[in-house]
């Protein structure tokens, strides 16, 4: 809050738009769902662990319950048997909810163009950010998350209502 408090002076008042304030809150503590599928989940764990420290972005708290999560990082290949589960988890999340397709398999099934895989998780849930890589490096995941934050900062009040109808 360093920037804000310096602008406050000693009046204790700050003016901003509702959009900015809500989006600031949404990006500041976006709790991901504790949900891993395959190899990418291991890199997601590495991103949350010591070296890359995802808590810098207010994201260290993984919620095991979709009811408490804002973001679902689909980390790994989505198998046809797993697809209904992914959709159910997404449906259980409260709005606003965001989806990151982490890795080639979640984005487009990667090298596995075969009978077993859903060819990209966007066949099942709407995806906000795609991250390439097999698996993506932690830096790439962080970049994807920051891209999502950037996108959320540009959201407006009328878009929230659309999101509610989703």
């Amino acid at each position, binding site marked *: 809050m360093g920037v804000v408090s310096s602008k406050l002076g000693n009046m204790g008042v700050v003016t901003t738009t509702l959009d900015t304030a809500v989006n600031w809150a949404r990006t500041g503590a976006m709790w991901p769902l504790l949900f891993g599928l*395959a*190899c990418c989940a291991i890199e997601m764990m590495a991103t949350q662990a010591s070296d890359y420290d995802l808590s810098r972005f207010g994201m260290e708290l993984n919620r095991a319950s979709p009811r408490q999560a804002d973001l679902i990082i689909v980390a790994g290949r989505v198998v046809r048997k797993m697809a*209904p589960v992914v959709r159910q988890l997404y449906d259980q999340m409260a709005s606003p909810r965001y989806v990151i397709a982490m890795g080639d398999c979640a984005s487009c099934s990667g090298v596995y163009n075969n009978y077993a895989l859903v060819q990209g998780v966007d066949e099942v849930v709407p995806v906000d950010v795609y991250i390439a890589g097999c*698996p993506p490096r932690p830096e790439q995941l962080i970049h994807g998350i920051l891209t999502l934050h950037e996108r959320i900062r540009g959201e407006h009040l009328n878009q929230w209502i659309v999101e509610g109808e989703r």
Partner: protein
Amino acid sequence: MAITNYASQNAGALAQESTWEGSVEELRGLVSERALTGETMLLNLGPHHPSTHGVLRLLLELDGEEIVTCLPDIGYLHTGIEKTIEAKTYEKGVTCTDRMDYLSPMSNNMVFCLAIEKMGELDVPERAQIIRVIGLELTRINSHLVWLGTHAMDLGAMSVFLYCMREREMILEMFEMLSGQRMMTSYIRPGGVWRDITPDFLPALEQFINLFPSRLDDYESLLTDNPLWRDRTEGIGVVEPEDALALGLSGPSLRGSGVNWDIRKAMPYSGYETYDFNVPIGLHGDVYDRFYIRILEMRESLKILRQAMARLTPTGEFRSNNRKFAPPPRAELGRSMEAVIHHFKLWTEGFPLPDEEVYVAIESPRGEIGCYLHGTGGNKPRRVHFKTPSFMHISALGSMSEGYMIADLVGIVGSIDIVLGDSDR
């Protein structure tokens, strides 16, 4: 929102495909009769559960807190890797094997390459074998670190996870020096390894070997004599040696029950018979023994790494000279027409293997991983099948966990070190 509608329509179709419209009658014979009358409770654990190490689903029958039946349901990560390899040349198939057991990619590369080398009667130079051993033992430590971190976190020790991942990053950086990739290395190739070790690899390895014993002591000081840890692990998930063999356990899970079986000793490959190391054996066959054996194994791996490092000559062959199987060095392409032809042939149609079948098994961090390979005489395999330790361990989970409390199940699942990518493929 066109995209949204499209997505939800698809989800509807997929959900319909898998909607279970049966009754509890279908479970007759799988669960006890008491479950059918509602006397005991049926509980689903997974596939979305933080402690199932991936997407394992367990159907539990509970009498209060006690587990009466535990039915594992796998297939939530079935990727069709074996079928995909059938459509690829042998060299390209190596890339697919990485993604099976994603915590120990080099073991998968190794067993697939050993099968190819056995079938093609391909030689592997001494130096390449040493580099392979270094890669395999680093992989073992890497895999055990993830296992230790997640296993301890499941049982409530969060900080161990952060320490383990810190050391794991050192290994991943070394893998990146070797292969250019952190996790999916595809470094071990038929006839040797992809490229020679890079100049910064050996100093990094030496630093790791010197540092890691003290870090292992740190983990042990957090867990080994910790009364809370011992309470949660001792006497839980006990497997008798004969049961362990009958259930098909392998690796540390088998040795925890006191069976002395390590493929590195019993059927050595890649020169393991020339290294001096011990195979830790457990006494009680419980979760604690399986934990402690993996800690000791990491120390033994360090011993192997030290010996391998001492043997490594500054230069030498890192890949077979058999040009029908291994590509020529890049420098040769400018001088020799024959090298260009070999290069072209290998990267367009690959190499043929005879219409025969082989089976090779190695000791992966999890246990025995085997590769059955059937050639066609052409450049693609007819059938590739992997016998994977996680699959065997999951099948043993039911009998291992019966009679224990549901809270202990998390420890038992962690102690057999399963990776769902390995079991479902």
